Structure formats: structure tokens, C-alpha cells
């Protein structure tokens, strides 16, 4: 948890601020995605219920349609060839439209042109079985409508299923990967900063002690020199602590490597 699951970042205050804003973003994103996923799931359930209902109805209408075809064939003989050869234009055309649900484009199919019955087919079975053919035609149109509804539901179902999976994956990714990592990083940065602060403090204390010591020594010397003459102090110790800090960081890093 500790070592790997954080961003490899230089622990500075700047980075901390960055991380914090990132975390905030992640939390907002998470809640948004969660809401989206919920919305989609509700829709999904609705479609599912619809599909079940439609499929059952579909079975009934399809059976009715194919049975009416059998009845028509009984009355009119084999007429399918003459119907097939007579086809010119499609009587029924399906148009695809999209519906937007929580940013997801769902395709829906719609039956558009229904020019009743095309003229060339109107008189099929004129001499016998016309009624049965007409009935069969009607029930097939009904079945076709059910089929179209079912098709758009089914496509929506598949699309939604996919989208919901992706969204859920994202939600989970944010919740279980991105957020902990960011939190870990923030914690790490905070600890590091605290650590370096403590070191700084300690060092300052040390420097202060040294300075005090030096001051005492200096005062002692001054007092001695007062006796003889005044002597100047050295300016070099300032560069020394900086050097030391740098080396300490390196040490820390080495420690990290060992943990790994």
C-alpha cells in the first residue's frame, strides 16, 4: 500500500497543492460518474423489463403471423413466388434515430414510411384467398412493428450495458486506485515535509547552539581581547548546512529504495 501506490513525485508544497486539487477533482468526478452510472442503471432496468415484456409479446405475434401465413397458403395456394417477384419498393422502411441518456447516445429505430400496401401487391389472391392474404399481411406488419421495437430496445440494451460497464469501471478505478493513490501521495508529501521541517528545526537548533557557543567563545575571547585587542569572526559556516540538507535527502531516497 505504502510504497508503490503513490505518485512518484517530489514532495514539495507545490506538489501538495497540486495533489490536493487533483484529489478534489477525483472526488467530484467520482460522484458525477456514480450518478451517471445510477441513471444508466435505472434506464437499463427499465429497458430490461421492456425487453422481457416485448419478447413475450413478440413470440405471440410472430406465432400468429406465421400461422396466418399458413392459413393464407391453405386458401390461396403457393403465392409467395408471385409476391417475391412483384416486389418493387420496400413497403416499410426503418429509420435510425439517437436518444441521449446521460450523455450516452442510444440508437432507436422507427418505422417511417408505410404506404399501406403497395399497389402491385394489393390484388394478390384476387381469385381466391385474398382475405387470408390480407390478414396475413396485417399480422406480419404487426409482427414487424414488434420486431422493430424489440430491435431498438435490444440495441439500446447492448449499448447501455457497455456504457454502464465502462462507467462502473471508471467509478471503481477512481474509488479504489486513483483516490487512494492521491491520498497516499498527499500523506507522503505531508510526512516528508514534516520530516524535513523537523530536520530543519533541529539543524537550526544546532546552528543556534553552535552560534551561541561561538558567541560565548567569542564573548569570552572578546572579553579576553578586550583585554588585548578585538578579532573578526568567520563567515563560512552558512554554506555548510545547505550541503548537509541535500545529502540528507539523498539518504532518505536511499532508504526508500531499500523499502522497495
Amino acid at each position, binding site marked *: 500500500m505504502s510504497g508503490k501506490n503513490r505518485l512518484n513525485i517530489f514532495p514539495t508544497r507545490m506538489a501538495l497543492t497540486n495533489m490536493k486539487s487533483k484529489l478534489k477533482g477525483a472526488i467530484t468526478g467520482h460522484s458525477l460518474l456514480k450518478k451517471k452510472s445510477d441513471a444508466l442503471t435505472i434506464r437499463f432496468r427499465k429497458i430490461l423489463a421492456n425487453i422481457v415484456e416485448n419478447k413475450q409479446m413478440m413470440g405471440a405475434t410472430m406465432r400468429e403471423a406465421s400461422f396466418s401465413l399458413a392459413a393464407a397458403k391453405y386458401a390461396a395456394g403457393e403465392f409467395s413466388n*408471385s409476391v417475391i417477384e412483384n416486389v418493387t419498393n420496400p413497403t416499410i422502411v426503418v429509420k435510425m434515430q439517437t436518444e441521449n441518456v446521460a450523455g450516452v447516445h442510444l440508437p432507436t429505430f422507427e418505422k417511417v414510411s408505410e404506404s399501406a400496401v403497395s399497389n402491385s401487391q394489393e*390484388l394478390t389472391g*384476387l381469385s381466391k384467398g385474398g382475405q387470408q392474404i390480407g390478414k396475413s399481411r396485417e399480422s406480419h406488419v404487426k409482427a414487424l412493428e414488434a420486431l422493430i421495437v424489440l430491435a431498438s430496445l435490444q440495441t439500446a440494451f447492448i449499448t447501455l450495458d457497455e456504457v454502464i460497464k465502462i462507467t462502473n469501471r471508471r467509478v471503481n478505478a477512481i474509488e479504489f486506485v486513483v483516490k487512494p493513490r492521491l491520498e497516499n501521495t498527499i500523506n507522503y508529501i505531508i510526512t516528508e515535509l514534516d520530516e524535513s521541517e523537523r530536520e530543519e528545526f533541529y539543524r537550526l537548533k544546532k546552528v543556534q547552539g553552535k552560534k551561541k557557543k561561538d558567541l560565548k567563545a567569542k564573548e569570552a575571547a572578546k572579553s579576553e581581547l578586550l583585554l588585548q585587542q578585538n578579532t573578526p569572526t568567520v563567515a563560512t559556516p552558512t554554506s555548510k548546512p545547505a550541503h548537509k540538507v541535500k545529502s540528507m535527502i539523498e539518504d532518505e531516497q536511499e532508504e526508500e529504495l531499500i523499502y522497495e
Partner: protein
Amino acid sequence: MGFFSTRKHGNDGYLEGLLRGFRKGILTAADYANLRQCDNLEDMKLHLSQTDYGDFLAGEPSPLHTTTIAEKATQKLVNEFMHIRNQAVEPLATFMDYICYGYMIDNVVLLITGTLHERDVSELVDKCHPLGMFKSMATLSVVHNVADLYNMVLIDTPLAPYVQECLSEDDLDEMNIEIIRNTLYKAYLEDFYHYVNELGGQTSLIMNDILKFEADRRSINITINSFGSTELTKDDREKLYPAIGLLYPEGTAKLSKAEDVDTVRSILEVYSSYKSFFSEGGVSAETSLEDSFFKHEVQLNRMAFEDQFGYGVFYAYVKLREQEIRNIVWIAECISQNMKQKIDQFIPIF
């Protein structure tokens, strides 16, 4: 009757006996009862194999389809018919050819449709009814447009007189295909009617009834089926009524003016033989009108078998077998589609 018609019988008696042998193979009520009990098409196949159909479905791949059954059964009928046709001498041969013309009309119409829509005509030949094949079908491969079809094929068919009489080359392009079909059929029915009357004797006795009924049925059906149609005006409709039958000319004249089913019913009230058709069915059930037509047709055809020394039996046999095939397919459909409650709607023959 019969004294001089027995003269022809010397030639045709053998074939009549043969045909009555085939007729014995028509499924009986017991066979239908067996078929009704079947749970799937395999069962049906088993039951049918115990009847005259024998192993007509042998060698078919296992998931049987109703269309296969229909196809094979039709093939059997065609084989029987051709067996008799090939042995027939005049005038029975011509009579049997006349039976074929009805199917030929359907085939020709199919070919016209195919050509109009620029389909490959030679492919259409496979879809034609086997009873309606004609010799010039071989030349179909050279046909590319309607003019070719008219000038090279149709003129050579036995249907040529009907085609010439009723249609011009341009009509093929312009007229609705169903109207062409019915125009041809009308000419055919009238011609057939005159032919059987020329034959006279028992043939004309039996066939008159059958053909008159067929003509009346067409008239009534055309009337009812063209209600609400934009394509078929009343004048055109009248032209499709065959000029024979009980309804002709008074009834057909009235029918041509009819606007709805009720009018048709009131017109038919006068004709005692057709009166019952409507009263059975009631207003809504046009289906049962069709059914009563079928029933009556079966009845007439069955009567043909009560008679000897005429050619009516040859016609009746084909029609009865067709009805039987319809029955079998219906039962098969009911079984395969799990609609057993409707299985009894077929028309038993004997």
C-alpha cells in the same frame, strides 16, 4: 346416357380404373385421425408412410419442413397425373391438357412478373408448378424482355389463344399482374367449359357443375377481394367474371355493382346453392366463406367419382388430391407451430 359413351370407355376404361386405384389412396377419416394425434413432423412422416404416400419422404434430411412435405406430395400427384396423361388417347388427352392449362396460367403469370422485374427467367422455371410446364419453357433462356416473352414464348404455349384474345403486348407491361392472371383464367374457364360440352355425355354433366361452380366462386371472390381496391375499378371487375356459371349473366351484373359484403350476400340469397355459404359464416367470418367454397368443391368433386364413363373423375382427382395436400400441410403447420386447437379446420375428403 351411357350406351354410346361406353364406346369411348374402351379406350379410357383402363385409365379410369387406374385412376380409381389412385383414388383409393386418398386419405380416409381414419388416416386423418391418426395424423391429428402426431406430436411432430417425424411422427407424421411415420403415419403417412403407412398410407398410400408410402416412403415419399424417405431420404429427406431430418428436420422436416412443411414445404418439403407439400413439395413431395405435389410431386407424387404430378407423377400419377403424368402416368395417366402419357397413356391417354384423344379426347382424354386433350381433356387432361386442359386440366394443366390452369396451372400453366399461374406459371406464365409468374414468368411475366419475373421478366417485368428483370429477374433471371431461367431461374423462375424451378419455381413453376410442375403440372403447368410447357414445351417452350426451354426457350426461356433467351428471353430478356416482355416483348420477347410475348412473341417467342407465350405464342407457342397452348395458352396462346387466350393470350391473343385478351391481351396485347403492351398490356403485359401496364396491367396489374393479378388482372392479367384472372383475365387469362376467365378465358381458360370458358374455353374449358365449351370443350367439355363438345365432349358431351357424362363428362359434360359432371364437369358443367364443377366448372360453373368454379366460375361462380371466382366471381364472388374477385368481388369480395377487390373491395377497397384502387387498382380494380368496377368496370374492370366485371370483365374478370367468367361468362359461365349460375350467376351469369344476372348475378354477375349485380355483383359488379356491389360495394360491400352485405350486398354480395343479398345478391346470393336468390341462388339456393350459394345461399347457405353466407348464412353459415355470418358477417365477420369471410374465412368460413372460403372454407364453404372448399367444402362445396370437395363435395362436387367427390360426386364425380359416383359416376362412370366420364372424364370428370380425372379433373376431380387432381382437385381432391390438391385439397388433400392442403390438408396435410395444414395439419403439419398446426403441429409444427403448436396450434393444435385449430387442427380441425381442414376438409376431410372421403
